[in-house]
């Protein structure tokens, strides 16, 4: 789950990483009470989960006289379609230099990877694309508690040594907070020292509970509802509902719909051991989406009981036609039950998707 900037800064600050003085406001007038503490020049940053926020108009500068007016302006904006409900107002730092540091997971070496660049800020991705050597990278064994000095030297190159403790603290955040990503861009030097001017963090969805996060905000309401039943669910914008077992097979079913020039309404993986109850919930959930004209059920596996699945589909009793492809045990009984109630069961996923396309037309 992605954290917003002010949340990530709270986490970083708890690990001793200096962040600018700041305050979170929900009404423009709230800023007035804090101006004395923040100084006569402030930066107002929309707290929205949007990439390229600055370029999209989500960051504004103001002196103290214009702060309320500027806050009002920012609250009235939508940043890439996302309304601004919270603004982080911060002191404006006298920046000397901007750096980039990011810690992520390197799938290839199965270890944390630390990225560092001498030039931080909004253009880092373009810079990295044009010149790979602009970003230095080191991988760190997950068996180590700290980034060892030799790797830190390699990472920093000629950059100031005072950055090292901040980067090492960020590594602690990454390890202890179950982060998939912990990033400071820009990491800035000022006459007063080093600061995390921005902060980005993604927490591993599989570790939310042990990190004390009760609700995964990245999911829509329907997606959360699906999660309660143990389904993986993603909403899309087509008219063909999809239910599969296993992430790969379900994705492959969506792709097949696209291959035949159709559009899937959703991705729903019912997981292993799809019984009557689960299948019924899955079919009802997909049928509850307003644009669904037809539902394709594609289940395969040694232990899927086709009679159970058939009973679940029949029990769901939904309006859109349901076209079924399944293979497992008790296949014949499943087919018979479905046929009795007027449902079609087909032999292959190609055939099932083609049949659904016909209905969707």
């Amino acid at each position, binding site marked *: 789950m992605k954290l917003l900037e002010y949340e990530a800064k709270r986490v970083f600050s708890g690990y001793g990483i200096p962040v600018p003085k700041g305050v979170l406001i929900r009404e423009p007038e709230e800023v007035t009470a804090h101006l004395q503490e923040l100084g006569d020049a402030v930066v107002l940053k929309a707290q929205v989960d949007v990439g390229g926020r600055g370029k999209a108009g989500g960051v504004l500068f103001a002196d103290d006289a214009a702060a309320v007016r500027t806050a009002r302006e920012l609250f009235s904006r939508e940043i890439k379609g996302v309304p601004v409900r919270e603004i982080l107002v911060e002191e404006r730092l006298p920046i000397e230099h901007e750096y980039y540091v990011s810690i992520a997971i390197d799938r290839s070496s199965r270890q944390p990877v630390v990225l560092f660049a001498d030039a931080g800020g909004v253009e880092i991705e373009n810079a990295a694309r044009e010149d790979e050597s602009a970003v230095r990278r080191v991988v760190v064994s*997950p068996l180590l508690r700290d980034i060892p000095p030799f790797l830190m030297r390699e990472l920093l190159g000629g950059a100031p040594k005072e950055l090292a403790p901040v980067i090492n603290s960020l590594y602690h955040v990454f390890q202890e907070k*179950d982060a998939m990503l912990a990033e400071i861009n820009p990491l800035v030097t000022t006459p007063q020292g080093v600061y995390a001017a921005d902060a980005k963090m993604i927490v591993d969805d599989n570790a939310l509970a*042990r990190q004390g996060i009760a609700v995964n905000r990245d999911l829509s309401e329907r997606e959360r509802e699906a999660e309660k039943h143990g389904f993986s669910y993603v909403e899309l914008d087509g008219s063909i509902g999809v239910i599969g077992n296993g992430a*790969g097979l*379900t*994705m*492959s079913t969506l792709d097949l719909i*696209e*291959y035949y020039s159709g559009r899937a309404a959703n991705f729903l993986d019912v997981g292993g051991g799809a019984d009557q109850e689960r299948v019924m919930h899955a079919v009802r959930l997909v049928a509850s989406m307003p644009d669904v004209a037809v539902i394709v059920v594609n289940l395969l596996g040694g*232990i899927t009981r086709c009679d159970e699945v058939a009973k679940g589909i029949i029990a769901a009793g939904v309006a859109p036609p349901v076209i079924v492809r399944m293979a497992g045990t008790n296949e014949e009984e499943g087919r018979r039950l479905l046929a009795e109630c007027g449902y079609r069961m087909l032999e292959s996923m190609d055939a099932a998707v083609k049949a659904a396309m016909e209905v969707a037309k």
Partner: protein
Amino acid sequence: MIYGGKNLGVIVQNITGRQGTFHTELMNAYAREVGGQGVVAGVAPGKAGREVHGVPVYNTVKDALAEHDATASVVFVPAGAAGDSIMEAAHAGIELAVVITEHIPVHDAMLAIAYAKLHDCTVIGPNCPGLLSPGECKLGIMPAHLATRGEVGVVSRSGTLTYEVVDELTRAGIGQSTVIGIGGDPVIGQTFVDALARFEDDPHTKAVVVIGEVGGNLEEEGVRSTDLPVVTYIAGVSAPPEKKMGHAGAIIEGGEGDARSKVRRLAALGIPVASRPSEIPGLIREVL
């Protein structure tokens, strides 16, 4: 056959759980059918002395290995404790840990895999269906009846999609040497590179089907690393960015790891890429 054959002694961690019990029975049914060893012991803390389908249960991996000759473990331990169980197995001398468990926190997986490596223990998974060498050995949860013995290797990040492809191959009369699911998580013990290296050393494997999906770029890394003829399929061409498609690792992040660019890069290497699973048998025939 890669990773292990008929003589492989196997333990099951969390053998008394629902999945552990069920699949112990299926693995041993398969072992009997092919004349292999199968599961010789199980582990479940606090449950020593019990039996599961005739297999004795021990409190720890160490206790199990003191009584039985086993070098592989199939791990069904729940997500919160699975990382620890992998390390327990490695520490006790297990050489191959096949981790079925889904939803293990990625930092636990990184730590356990690094620790296992220190102890020369190979980890397959997590979040994988295991492997099946038809006629030889089954470790994990793959449905054996879809497979048939032959010369094509299959390596995949997926479970059921793998069964789909195996079914297509079998129906087309193309048998498999080993079918391995390496797992759907962002961090996995054996990647495509490792599995393909094993296939390359296996005299019975003449070509390999590589089944990938959105997220990361390990399919390309794997394909580049091998001299074997390879056919690929990438799931998730229609996946939207920044959305997790069922697997923790199946996500397009920061504009990277989308299926179309994977397909483009594989095709640029001259590798046949199937646009749907039913095309795979035809493409395999062309490279064999």
